[in-house]
Structures are given as C-alpha cells and as structure tokens.
C-alpha cells in the first residue's frame, strides 16, 4: 500500500498502542502534525515548550512502563528536548522522539533551523536514526520501539526530513525485527540464583538494596515474596521507592545521602548486600570504599556494564530483576534473621527521621516535612507523586510513605530541575491513574512554569504544590554547611506571587503560611475537580537531614535537628 511518511508514522504509533503524543509544531513537522487531524484515536498533546514534551513523555513512561512519544520540529525544537532526553536516558526510561529535519537535499548546508540532531543527541540516547530513505521508515519505527522498551530501556530518537513526511512509499512493516548486534539480557542463570541464595542463607545480616530497575521491571511483588520468605530487610534508592511498601515492617526506607539513619546503618553493618537494579550511584554510596564495608556483595542487573563498574562484587548476575527475584523467591525460606531484625528495630526507634508535628512547630513556622506528612496521611499512598529537584524532593522521598511501585516520579540520576510539572502532565494521560500531586520548589517550578498552560488547556487534575522557601534550598543548604553561609546566587526574595501566576492561567490557587491552614488546604485541594495550586510559604532555613555529605561515609552522618 502506498503511504506517505506521516501516514507510516501514525500507523506505527497505533500498532504500538500509543494513545497520545506530546509535541510542539514547527516548519519541519507540519505534514506530520497535519496527519494527526485525520485520526481521532490518537491525540497530539500540545505542550508549551519542547523540553516539557520530553518530560511529559517521561512521566507517562515512568508511571505506565510504556514508552512516551515526542514529536518536535528541527533545530531549536529538537535541541530543546535534549535535557528531557538526557533525564530519561540517565534513569533508563523508554521514550521515542521524532524530530523533523530540513529537506533531504539541503541537509548539511546550514539550512534554516538545521541542527545536527543525530550528533547532538547521540550521547543522550540509547540509539538514534537519521532516515534518508523513506523505504526504511517502517522498519526504523519498529526497531526504535523495540530498542527503547527492551533490555535496559532508554530513549531512541528518529530524525526525519520534512520532505519524506509527504513522499510516498509502498514499504511495509517487517514481520520480524532483526538487529544482529542487539542482545537481550539472558534469563537468570539458575546456578547463579542458587549461589545467591546460598550466600543469603549463610549471611546473618543481609540487606536488599533495591534500585529503579525493580520498578522498571514491575517486580514489586516478586521482591516482596522473596523479602518476606527470607525475612530480609529492604532499602531502596530514590528511584526504587515504592518497589516495597514503605509501611511494610521489612522496609528501611531510602538509603544514601539523605536516606534514613536506619537504612544507612543497616548497610554499614550488613554482611551481605543484595543489590538489584541499582547502580551504586555516588549519591547512594558516598565514599565507595566505605560503602557497606563488611558486606559480601551480590549485584543483579540486566546491563552487564553496571556489574563491577563502581564496586567489585562477589557475585554478579546479569538478569532481569523480575526474573531473578522470582527465581530466588522460589528457593527462599526463613533464615535466622531474628537478632538482626531486632537490632534494626531498636536502631529505628532510637533514630527516627527529624519530625515536625503540629505541636513541635513554632507558631508562624511552617515546615515542609509537616506539609508532606499531611499529604501522605491524606492520600495513604494512593497517589502519583511527582517531585522536582532540591530539598523538597528529598523531603518528599523521606516523609511521603510510598506504598505502590512506580508511584514516585522524579529525576534521580540527572537531577533535572523543571521536571515535575511537565512529568505530572504526562502522568495524567495514563488510564485510571490515581490523584497526581506535583511537588516543586520555587526555583524549579519556574523552569517549566509555562506548562500551566498545558495543564489548563487539557484541564489536567493535578494538585500543584509549591514549597516556597524563597531560595534555592538545596544549594543554599550546601552553602550553609560547607561554604560559610555565603549565599552566592541562591536567595530569591523577589520570588513571584505564584497564586497570581496560576490565576493568570485560570487555575485556582491559594497561599498557606500557617500550620493551622495546612490540613484544610490539603482537603480542599484533594476534593477539587481539575487543576489547583497551593503555595506553602515554608521556613526558609529548613535543612534536609539526615545527611551524609558527598564523598563521606556512614560515620559522618549528620542526624540534624
């Protein structure tokens, strides 16, 4: 059948079950955008900035596990997506980005809005394509989805010249995708699983260290079965949150720089760490030589290049997290971890997170921890929580109790300010999603604040929470701790009136400055239909504790107030 390039793309998207694309128009994608008008079963969500299109696709993918799709124009449209693509790449999020390109005959002439997008995007994509022959387009689209979603997921970009969007071809989709150099991870080797179980059985202080890979693999249930069967305590990374419910007795909470005292203590004392789908990021390990210094290490990851990359391990298993956890779960039975669990229990009792309840808070003082705890109490884990980057992100990680896998969407590896609002936009397009709550600082919120327009035009039911401390809190915290409180560029006394801004976008908003107002405001927001913004004027001197400073180790932990 003769089809033009745009029709081929629409067909491929539908074959892949894509319901919506996030995009922004421009000269080099006019034919492709036009084709969307011929299809009522796939929508094109027009955001307000291309970076946001990528974050929205990312948010959708983080929540659903299905790839998010982005379509933007050439040149500046394409380069604007790069931060969003890099964010997805770092956290292994499946995404397809289609960029328009200048006409084939003028490629390489510095034509209007021409950028070497293949070159610019190469380091931040799992794979990318420049399509010069329309006959290849069907196969390229199939391969792109396949590569983005299999193995270690990641973004795949397709650069498509505008002339090919209108030219026709009779090329068909291929029956079978064949990419000779592309290997899928093997099934978990049962001998290795057995060995892992033997090591676990012999250990007296085992800990499961769970990363984003477990969420990506939807392996929460398998994790729970294994952890419960063998009674092994579980700590997660930021991206691993929710893989085990944080109100489960075996959950130690998050580990790392701002992790719980208990989780970091347990890692420090452990004689066997089982790392699954985690990559020993420096925000987790601190000083690598002193990370879990007494432990034997088992590392399970589907990317062989992660094993032994940062930390030499005693047993490396290349396998999908779900597969491994399911297999080891079958072997597992109760081991004598009673003394270990008892020890953990007493540490937990003696070292709770710094807590700010209503009674302890001074009049006129509003602490972010308290605000987040109240959201957590009202939502009981039934929410999609999207957080931006900074202090508030860590407060959310610490004080919101995540009970479901994939329920905390946040930029972990790249730490991209401006992520949250557009990612929340994307999350709203997942069918049957829970209440979406988006936590931002006053800094990061302004990095994609224009997406209030998207929120308005699609009437997206997001509770937007701005925790306004009138400074770039996380950087200020480092200045307070390590730079003599010299606030170079971190104070924002003239931060705008966010309620007024929301109103400008016809989104209702309110400001909360007293602790008594917190609960009513939350209740109002959670029963509100459609988008709503609440700005909380929080203590500008809040610090995130506990903290193990960068490059330090457990003994250097600052427990805080």
């Amino acid at each position: 059948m003769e089809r033009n390039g745009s029709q081929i793309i629409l067909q491929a998207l539908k074959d892949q079950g894509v319901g919506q694309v996030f995009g922004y128009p421009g000269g080099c994608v006019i034919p492709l955008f036009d084709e969307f008008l011929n299809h009522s079963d796939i929508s094109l969500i027009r955001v307000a900035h291309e970076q946001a299109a990528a974050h929205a696709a990312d948010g959708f993918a983080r929540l659903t596990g299905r790839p998010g799709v982005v379509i933007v124009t050439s040149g500046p449209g394409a380069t604007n997506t790069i931060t969003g693509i890099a964010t997805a790449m770092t956290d292994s999020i499946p995404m397809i980005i289609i960029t328009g390109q200048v006409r084939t005959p003028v490629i390489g002439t510095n034509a209007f809005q021409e950028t070497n997008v293949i070159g610019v995007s190469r380091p931040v994509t799992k794979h990318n394509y420049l399509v010069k022959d329309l006959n290849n387009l069907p196969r390229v689209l199939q391969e792109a989805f396949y590569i983005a979603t299999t193995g270690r997921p990641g973004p795949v970009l397709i650069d498509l010249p505008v002339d090919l969007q209108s030219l026709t071809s009779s090329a068909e989709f291929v029956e079978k995708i064949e990419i000779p150099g592309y290997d899928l991870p093997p099934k978990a080797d049962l001998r290795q699983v057995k060995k892992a179980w033997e090591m676990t059985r012999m250990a007296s202080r085992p800990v499961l260290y769970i990363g984003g890979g477990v969420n990506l693999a939807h392996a929460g249930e398998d994790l729970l079965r294994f952890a419960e069967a063998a009674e092994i305590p579980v700590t997660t990374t930021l991206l691993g949150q929710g893989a085990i419910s944080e109100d489960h007795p075996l959950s130690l909470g998050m580990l790392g720089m701002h992790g719980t005292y208990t989780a970091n203590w347990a890692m420090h004392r452990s004689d066997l760490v089982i790392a699954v789908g985690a990559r020993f990021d420096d925000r987790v390990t601190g000083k690598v030589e002193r990370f879990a210094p007494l432990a034997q290490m088992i590392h399970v990851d589907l990317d062989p290049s992660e094993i032994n990359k940062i930390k030499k391990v005693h047993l490396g298993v290349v396998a999908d997290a779900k597969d491994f956890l399911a297999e080891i779960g079958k072997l597992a039975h109760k081991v004598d971890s009673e003394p270990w669990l008892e020890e953990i229990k007493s540490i937990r009792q003696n070292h709770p997170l710094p807590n700010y309840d209503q009674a302890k808070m001074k009049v006129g003082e509003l602490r972010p921890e308290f605000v987040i705890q109240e959201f957590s109490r009202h939502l009981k884990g039934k929410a999609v929580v999207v957080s931006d980057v900074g202090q508030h992100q860590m407060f959310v990680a610490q004080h919101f109790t995540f009970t479901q896998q994939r329920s905390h969407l946040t930029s972990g590896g790249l730490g991209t300010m401006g992520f949250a609002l557009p990612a929340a936009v994307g999350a709203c397009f997942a069918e049957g999603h829970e209440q979406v709550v988006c936590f931002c600082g006053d800094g990061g919120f302004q990095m994609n604040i224009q997406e209030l327009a998207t929120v308005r035009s699609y009437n997206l039911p997001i509770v937007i929470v701005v925790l306004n401390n009138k400074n770039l809190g996380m950087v200020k915290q480092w200045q307070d701790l390590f730079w003599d409180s010299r606030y170079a560029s971190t104070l924002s006394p003239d931060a705008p009136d966010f309620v007024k801004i929301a109103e400008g976008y016809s989104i209702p908003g309110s400001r909360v400055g007293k602790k008594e107002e917190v609960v009513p405001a939350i209740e109002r927001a959670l029963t509100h239909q459609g988008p709503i913004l609440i700005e909380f004027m929080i203590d500008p001197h809040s610090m995130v504790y506990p903290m193990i400073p960068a490059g330090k180790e457990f003994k250097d932990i600052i427990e805080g107030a």
Partner: protein
Amino acid sequence: MKHVISVLVEDRIGALARVVELFTSRGYNLESVCTGECERKGVHRMTLVTTGDDDKIRLILKLLKNIVYVWEVRHLKPHQTISLELMLVKVQAGVAQRTQVLTLVQAYQGNLIEMNHESVTFEIAGSASKLDGVAEVFSEFTILEMARTGEAAIHK
C-alpha cells in the same frame, strides 16, 4: 597496559561515531583506530588500541557491546593475534643521503614508492612497535610527512 580490541560494527550512519565517542565521553585513551570492510557484507571491522588496567578494559568491552550496531567485541591477546600496521613516510633526501635511506628501507623490508631529487617516499608495514622503531631511526633525517594507519588485527 596496551590493549587491542577488535569490533565488528554495522556500516550505518553514526555507528563509528558511537564507538569513538564511547572513549572520549568516558575519558579513555584511544591510541589508534583502524577501520574498514571485513569478511561480512555491510559490516566493518574496527581495531582499537587503548591503554588501561584490566578493570577498565573489562568495562570498555561491555560498554562497546551495549552499542546497538556493534555485533561482536573481542579483546585480542598478543599471543593470539596477528596484527599489522602500515606507515607511509616521505623523508628529505638529496643524492647524498639517498643510498642510506634506501638501505634502511630495505633493511625494514619496506617498499620504495616514489623518489625525486629531494625526497624519498616509502612504505613500511609491521607491528606497531616495529614502526615505532622505524620512526625513531628515521628521525635522524628530516621527515617531511608521515602517516600511520593504526594497527589492524585479527585472531590467529
């Protein structure tokens, strides 16, 4: 430590760039790259020479294999490897020095390519270390131009 890595990579847009960028983006040395067609159609064999300790090399091998267009990655151990590099040299040599140059070229089993009244151009093939030696020996002349291909290697 010097390591020779042989990579089979599909001949596609950007494939070569991904391989080379892997080294630059991670700050690894890339001493030489030699690439061209091989026994399979549509596939290139690249021979990469790098330095680093064993852990680093193990990681590089895995990262290379992660590139979608890379079919095969092989770490070639010296005793299992046949490798050869080609060197083209133009040295300044008038009548007085000509014989001396030609004798040396012959001693290295090189081939004369061109000669005129002021220079001699020749090629010499051999292992990288042999060519290092050649370069040193000829440094007593004025080398006008020199090009080395980098090692190409295959398994014994």
